[in-house]
């Protein structure tokens, strides 16, 4: 649905995006992840036709962004980083204006505005001036604006920035509810957002592609060791050495009041550990698999730069 091939964008001498390639399949939510100034916004601006690229190809739903920009714009909803709102307009008249410039036929405009208001939960503020509504509502107006022409593709630039935790959860749920019908590319530097909403992720840094793939693929490829974290009633060095003696275990370390046990993949040491704990009556409180989370992945990718 969204395809980027060797995309390069230069601002004078500054290279914002360098040879970027990735693909988002239809109906999926992908996250564009990277530190500040990584080139996330530039990539999104190119995809939505706001900026031309210096080199490379980009297409949305088989329409080339540079050759058929109007076709792309018709099927793409875009929420820029700074919500493009006119403070002196009411929410309703703003959405009405957007419905006009997004080429919604006059007969369907009223319905489109009503639907966008409903999806984004703006019923209570639709007659108020945009300058008088809260940050959270402004962000929702931005989402309503992106959704109004029922686009197949949504490009959201940091959709949850500046919101309070409750609003962040609401917006995330809203984005998740759009999954399946629409293809979504969202940028963020909140790592939890990616694990909670996205199917796949593209990690970029300083304009370079660092990694891309579905979450499972990525975590699997970066995971070198398997392991568990266990929490016991008893503690101390003796237990550490006891755990060390289990066959196959490579490394045991104390992490706070927990023990981190690691072993090389595929040996199934878990049973051995359980047996030991039960036999020696160590008082097991908790035992959970040691999963590599997105944060580890991100830091690893950003610092190491392993291409996928």
């Amino acid at each position: 649905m969204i395809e980027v091939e060797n995309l390069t964008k230069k601002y004078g001498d500054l290279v914002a995006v360098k040879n970027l390639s990735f693909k988002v399949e239809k109906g999926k939510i992908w996250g564009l992840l990277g530190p500040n100034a990584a080139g996330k916004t530039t990539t999104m601006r190119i995809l939505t036709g706001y900026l031309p690229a210096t080199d490379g190809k980009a297409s949305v739903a088989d329409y080339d962004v540079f050759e058929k920009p109007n076709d792309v714009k018709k099927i793409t909803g875009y929420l820029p980083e700074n919500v493009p709102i006119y403070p002196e307009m009411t929410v309703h008249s703003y959405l009405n204006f957007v419905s006009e410039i997004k080429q919604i036929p006059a007969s369907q405009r009223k319905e489109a505005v009503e639907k966008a208001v409903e999806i984004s939960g703006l019923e209570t503020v639709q007659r108020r001036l945009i300058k008088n509504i809260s940050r959270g509502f402004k962000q929702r107006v931005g989402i309503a604006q992106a959704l109004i022409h029922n686009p197949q593709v949504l490009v959201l630039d940091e959709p949850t920035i500046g919101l309070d935790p409750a609003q962040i959860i609401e917006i995330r749920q809203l984005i998740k509810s759009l999954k399946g019908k629409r293809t979504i590319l969202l940028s963020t530097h909140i790592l939890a957002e990616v694990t909670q909403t996205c199917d796949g992720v593209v990690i970029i840094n300083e304009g370079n592609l660092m990694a891309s793939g579905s979450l499972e693929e990525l975590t699997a490829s970066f995971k070198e060791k398997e392991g568990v974290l266990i929490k016991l009633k008893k503690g101390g060095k003796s237990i550490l050495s006891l755990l060390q003696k289990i066959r196959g275990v490579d490394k045991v370390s104390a992490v706070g009041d927990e023990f981190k046990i690691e072993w090389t993949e595929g040996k199934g040491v878990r049973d051995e550990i359980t047996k030991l704990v039960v036999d020696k009556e160590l008082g097991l409180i908790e035992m959970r698999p040691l999963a590599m989370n997105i944060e580890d992945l991100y830091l690893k990718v950003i610092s190491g730069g392993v291409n996928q």
Partner: protein
Amino acid sequence: MKNIWAICKKEIKTYFTSPIAYVVITVFLVLIGFFFYSLIWWFNSQSLQMAQNQYYYQQLNINQMVYSPLFHNMSIILLLMVPLLTMRLFSEEKKRQTDELLFTSPISVNQIILGKYFASLLVLLVMLSLTGILSIFVFSYGNPELAPILSGYLGLFLVGAAFLAVGIFFSSLTENQIVSAILTFGALLLFWILNWASYSAGGMWKSVLNYLSFFQHFDDMTRGILDTTDVVYYLSFIFLGLFLTHSVIQSRRWR
């Protein structure tokens, strides 16, 4: 056309929901009212004096003595007001980053420019039509010629439209509204006084400078002379202004 109208409608709403349009129109009307009053007063006193002499009395012409100077005054005030009407058109979009919405919507840059331009033309039209009230007094108490008045108004409209095209161009150059207004004002004034330089210039330069000056083309129209070269001059000025605006916007995005 539909898209141009959508942009135009939004701009008109912005003009009239913010105080800008009201303030500009009111100040314009107050000043014009004052000029009109003093010109009529002067014309009256001249009439009283010349009533003694049959020959001079016939020389009195309200078109030449009231309307012609009034149109000149109006054009100068337009020169001061137009930068205030155009300064926000593109500067504000850029500053608020609402241009991202416009340029990622399926409408062309030309449609955006024309929509904004037509909205500012409409405000100009409102300003000029409201001064028509003054003519009601003149027509009910005197008998001026209609044709020169109409050609004068046409001239004013063309001058104003050319001013607006220059203003919209400077608005596309900067995201600072004050800078945009000052640049517009400076450019307009320069084109206005270009013919001063022609007094000292000679040969070809004299006619070139004269041709480029706003003043020269407008002067004929206030006296009821409608020449196509004057109309073409203003139309080409408008076209140039809008064309440059388009180039600026496109080049910004390509840089």
